[in-house]
């Protein structure tokens, strides 16, 4: 029997779907997370860059404030009476004291409008060619680019202011007062601008020369005249220097000295200088490291979660598969059980039908046999008298013939007409023949009763041989020769069997089935016109062990193939033409032997070698095991 199964999505497909779902969710979440991470990171980076720029700006502001103070200071000095007097002997002590008071100052001196500058301790130097002097004498307080002081031979910057006779700023300057400032003071201010451990700041003058730089070789000194960063070998650095000269500002990520660095730069207000802060990329981006770490951790956790989910899903799939397998197994077990039950039921039904049929047939046969038995008894019983009377009458007739040799002509005529001599001769024979026929009828009736055994439908000790003989008697007509074939010979090789306790009627049915099949097989063989050995059915009985008997019914027909043998006891299996056999005979026989008698039944055959059916049953076991079995149970 086949159960109708509902059709689920195939496992592989569902698995794939599930994984696709997990995968795509992970992808979407991943992309979202990554883009938000990028947004946050960029925002943070921008803010960090702004901070870095603010740092430079603050440094620049510091420097500007300092420069502004320098300018204010020199302007204040320019308006003091001692300086205005333009009398060096008067101004020198005052300016010296100012130098001592003012820590950043190397020296403060005045220059006349012709460019001749006073030198401490006497003498003079012409500074007409100096740009700062020209600017100052033109009326502008200004700060020079780094230069080597002509009197001190030291690198310095100079803050120069015009000296005017009066406070009127429009008046023509009468000289210039100038403060010679230590260059390294600027370096100190600039070097303090930091952003992280590995950053450094530098400042460039209006030409791109270093005012302050951590690399002393770049700095202006007595030994190395000047080094212009705008012409540096590092093209990126040179580009930055160019932008700084142009007084631009910004923050950029550039490869400098082989590594990527941020450079923040802006111009100063008080001088045509520019200041820059070089920050290694890590210094700024290390602040983002915690973010990166968090992102990594989240990424790792998410990855782990996906893996776990994946595994959980796989586990579920496995369990689902397992439980499905178990379910399927159960279903198939149930199905098998159900179909077995159904089969059993069908078989029981068939057996019931057959049994009913047999029972009905048995009743019929028994009834008929009983009904026939009486008349046959009359006939058989009276036939003796008939024979005596006929003998008496014939004796009387002979006496008449002896004593009246010449009877009346009419009598002689009649005697001749009826052929009296023949009649006298034949009548006893006829009676004998009738007696024989009646006897046959009597025997058949006995056999029928014996076969059906309606009166013996319980376990009884019976003579198996009697059963076989009865069956053969019933089948007598089929054994006889026909126009197509010779008579079949039945060879009985009966052993010394005890009375066997069995359901005799049922066993007779078994013999009937096997013998019918054997006759069919022999007829078939004849029909096929095979070699003409005598058609024989050999019936052997024997004891087997102490308490079992064996019956073998063998024919020398065509035999069976192995395939047929394997199915010979299956219900509804038949090799006969449609309508000739039910396919139930052997099956029922098997059940009778195996189930009712706890015996066994098997077949030995090969194609062309005939077939032998063996029945083995216990001779007395039934009583021991089951006792008396009611007829109803047998029917079931």
């Amino acid at each position, binding site marked *: 029997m086949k159960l109708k199964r509902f059709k689920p999505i195939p496992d592989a497909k569902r698995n794939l779907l599930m994984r696709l779902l997990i995968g795509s969710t992970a992808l979407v979440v991943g992309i979202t997370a990554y883009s938000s991470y990028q947004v946050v990171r960029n925002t943070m980076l921008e803010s960090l860059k702004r901070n870095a720029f603010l740092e430079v700006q603050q440094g620049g502001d*510091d420097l500007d404030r300092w420069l502004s103070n320098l300018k204010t200071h020199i302007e204040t000095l320019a308006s003091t009476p001692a300086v205005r007097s333009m009398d060096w002997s008067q101004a020198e002590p005052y300016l*010296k004291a100012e130098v001592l008071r003012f820590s950043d100052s*190397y*020296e403060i001196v005045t220059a006349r409008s012709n460019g001749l500058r006073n030198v401490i301790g006497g003498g003079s130097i012409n500074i007409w060619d100096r740009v700062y002097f020209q600017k100052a004498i033109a009326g502008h307080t200004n700060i020079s680019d780094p230069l080597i002081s002509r009197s*001190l031979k030291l690198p310095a910057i100079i803050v120069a202011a015009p000296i005017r006779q009066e406070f009127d700023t429009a008046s023509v300057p009468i000289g210039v007062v100038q403060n010679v400032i230590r260059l390294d003071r600027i370096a100190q*201010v600039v070097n303090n601008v930091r952003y992280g451990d590995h950053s450094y700041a530098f400042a460039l003058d209006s030409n791109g020369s270093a005012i302050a730089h951590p690399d002393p070789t770049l700095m202006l000194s007595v030994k190395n005249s000047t080094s212009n960063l705008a012409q540096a070998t590092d093209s990126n650095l040179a580009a930055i220097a160019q932008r700084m000269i142009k007084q631009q500002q910004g923050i950029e990520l550039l490869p400098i000295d082989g590594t990527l660095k941020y450079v923040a730069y802006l111009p100063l207000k008080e001088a045509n200088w520019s200041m820059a802060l070089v920050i290694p990329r890590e210094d700024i981006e290390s602040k983002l490291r915690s973010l990166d770490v968090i992102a990594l951790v989240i990424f*790792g956790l998410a990855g782990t979660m996906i*893996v776990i989910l*994946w*595994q959980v899903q796989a586990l579920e799939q496995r369990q689902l598969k397992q439980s499905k397998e178990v379910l399927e197994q159960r279903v198939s077990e149930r199905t098998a059980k159900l179909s077995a039950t159904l089969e059993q039921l069908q078989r029981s039904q068939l057996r019931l039908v057959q049994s009913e049929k047999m029972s009905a047939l048995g009743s019929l046969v028994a009834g008929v046999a009983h009904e026939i038995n009486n008349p046959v008894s009359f006939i058989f019983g009276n036939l003796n008298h008939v024979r005596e009377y006929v003998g008496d009458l014939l004796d009387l007739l002979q006496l008449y013939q002896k004593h009246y040799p010449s009877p009346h002509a009419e009598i002689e005529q009649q005697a001749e007409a009826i052929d009296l001599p023949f009649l006298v001769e034949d009548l006893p024979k006829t009676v004998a023949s009738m007696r024989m026929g009646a006897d046959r009828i009597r025997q058949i009736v006995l056999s029928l009763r014996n076969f059906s055994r309606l009166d013996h439908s319980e376990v009884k000790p019976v003579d198996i041989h009697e059963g076989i003989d009865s069956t053969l008697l019933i089948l007598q007509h089929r054994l006889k020769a026909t126009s197509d074939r010779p008579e079949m010979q039945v060879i009985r090789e009966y052993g010394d069997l005890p009375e066997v306790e069995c359901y005799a009627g049922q066993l007779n049915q078994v013999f009937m089935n096997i013998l019918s099949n054997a006759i069919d097989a022999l007829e078939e063989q004849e029909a096929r016109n095979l070699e003409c050995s005598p058609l024989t059915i050999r019936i052997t009985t024997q004891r087997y062990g102490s308490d079992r008997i064996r019956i073998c019914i063998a024919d020398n027909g065509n035999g069976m193939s192995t395939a047929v043998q394997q199915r010979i006891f299956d219900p509804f299996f038949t090799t006969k033409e449609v309508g000739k056999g039910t396919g139930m005979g052997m099956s029922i026989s098997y059940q009778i032997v195996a189930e009712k008698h706890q015996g066994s039944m098997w077949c030995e055959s090969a194609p062309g070698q005939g077939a032998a059916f063996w029945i083995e049953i216990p001779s007395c076991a039934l009583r021991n095991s089951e006792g008396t079995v009611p007829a109803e149970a047998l029917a079931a």
Partner: protein
Amino acid sequence: MSIRRRAFLQAGAGTLLASIAHGCVQQSQSSPTIAITDTLLKQIQQRGYLLVATEDDYPPFEFLVNGKPTGFDHELLDRLRKQVPFEIRQEIVPWQGLLPGVAEGKYDVALTAAVITDERAETLDFTTPFAESTIAYVKRKDDASIKTLQDLADKALGAQQGGASFAAVPDLEAVLKQKGGKLGPVKQYRKFAEAYQDLLNQRLDAVLHNIVSLSVLVDEKPAIFGLGERVGRKSYAAWAVNKGNQELLNFLNGFLGDLRQGGELKKLQEKWLKITFDQLPTEPLLPGDRPLRSISASPIKR
């Protein structure tokens, strides 16, 4: 999923997490280059860090620029920090509390230019000196009358009241006397700034001060001052530790010794002190190049 693949995935995830954790924990650590003894390390670990004390206003050794500590000693401290596997904490304290704090064990090291004196050597141990603290003189640059030490005879001198510079006056007097001259008037000042002012105003002809301070002054005001010769016994500046802390002393000496041998010390002197010392002793010496051990063997009573 096969067990094998699962194991791989788990191992992968584990490695990832481990590397993240490792990344979190690991910090850039410079490898120590100075040998540190286990006992010293234990000693430092007891406190948890090495505590050093520096002065707030002692240019060019220690001073503040825009509120940030800087100077010769700070640069040395920065270098030291990069070479040790432990934390170094710094406390900036006034000079008056610095050496007593180290003597009491409040601080591990007086990371300042402490002049090695007989008195201090009784309670403190000193490292090898990294600078001279000898007294010298400064004059006006345009004063041609002073060219050598004996030109100081009969000149008006300035010195700090009760300071080392004033203590060097007898040495100068002895030298002048030896050359046939005699000491002129010596004026004492509370602050050197006032002395320099008077020097500039020609009320003084020379000011006595330690050679480092003077060389820095002259470097700053090259137009007005000129550095003269040493006038007194040679004395030296070094770091100080609590007396008997030989392990720590050896460790610091190792650090300073490496700097001196590598030429780094000379560069730092040039940068900050504006003067270099070619023949610094390799052990702490008392003023006048007297060895310390004789003192500790038989302490002089004062």
